C-alpha cells in the first residue's frame, strides 16, 4: 500500500469485490443503523412496494464503499463524501467498489468513486475529498 498523498490523477485505490449480497447482510445493517424499512429485509413488503424482491439499503452500499479509504486514516480523513444512488442492489448481486483520483491539490485529493453490480451498471456514484494532514 503506497501513501495516498503520492496518488496522481488517474491513479486508483485497490478495488474490492464484495461477496454476493445476502439477506443476513441487510438484517445486520438494519440492526446496526436503525433503518428498519422492511423493503430491505422482508420479501412481502418489498413486493407490496412494487419491487421484485428486497433491495439493499443505499447506505449499506455507501458504507461499504468508504472502506477503500480506511487504510489511510493515519495520513488524513474523508472530508467530503458525496453519493448519488443510481440503481438498486438485489440479493445475490456482486458489488465491486472503485476509486480513482480526479484531482490532486495541496492537502486534498479528490476521487471519483462508484459501486458497480455484476452487469457493470453503477449502483452508486459520487466523489470523495480526502484531506491529508
Amino acid at each position, binding site marked *: 500500500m503506497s501513501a495516498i498523498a503520492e496518488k496522481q490523477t488517474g491513479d486508483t485505490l485497490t478495488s474490492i469485490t*464484495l461477496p454476493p449480497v445476502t439477506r443476513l*447482510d441487510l438484517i*445486520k*445493517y438494519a*440492526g*446496526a*443503523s*436503525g*433503518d428498519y*424499512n*422492511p*423493503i430491505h429485509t422482508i420479501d412481502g*413488503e418489498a413486493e407490496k*412496494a412494487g419491487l421484485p424482491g428486497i433491495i439493499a439499503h*443505499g*447506505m*449499506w452500499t*455507501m*458504507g*461499504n464503499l*468508504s*472502506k477503500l479509504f*480506511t*487504510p489511510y*486514516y*493515519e495520513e488524513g*480523513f*474523508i*472530508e*467530503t*463524501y*458525496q*453519493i*448519488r*444512488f443510481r440503481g438498486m442492489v438485489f440479493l445475490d448481486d456482486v458489488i465491486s467498489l472503485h476509486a480513482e483520483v480526479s484531482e490532486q491539490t495541496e492537502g486534498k485529493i479528490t476521487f471519483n468513486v462508484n459501486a458497480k453490480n455484476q452487469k457493470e451498471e453503477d449502483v452508486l456514484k459520487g466523489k470523495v475529498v480526502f484531506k491529508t*494532514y
Partner: protein
Amino acid sequence: MFEEAIGKGSNKVRNTVERGAVRKFADSIGDAHPIFVDEEAGKASRYGDNIAPPTFPRVFDYGEITGLNLPSKGLIHGEQIYHYERPLLVGEDIHCWTEVKDYKEKAGKSGTMGILSLEGKGEDSEGTLVFRAEQVVIITEAVRKGMEA
C-alpha cells in the same frame, strides 16, 4: 406539500459515539478495521482513540421537526453528502439536529415527484461543528397521494 416546512428545524439531541455501536456498524459494512474497533490500535493512532466510519451518523438521533410528518414507507433516497471537519471519536458526545433546506416538485414520467432536502448537523460538547449530513429524499406521487388520503 412540504413547502411550509422549509427552514424548520429540530431541537438538538445529545448522542454518544458508543464503542459497541461503532463496532456493530463497522462490522455491518464489512469494515471492522482496527482503527474503528481495536482499542490498542485506536490509542496508538494519531487520533488517540478509535474513530467511527464516515457513514456512522446514520445511527444518530436528530430529533423531530414539528409539522414535518414523512411517511414511514415509500421514500427514495436520492443523494447523500457528508462533510467533516474531523473524524468522529469513539466515546465523545455529539449534539445533532436537522433542518429542512428545500422542497421542490418536479413533473416526471410517473407523475409529480417531491424532492426534499434535509441537512443534519453534529457538534461536539464545545459547540464546534464536526459534520454536516445532507440528504435528498424523493417522494413519489403515489406516496404523496397516500399521505393526503
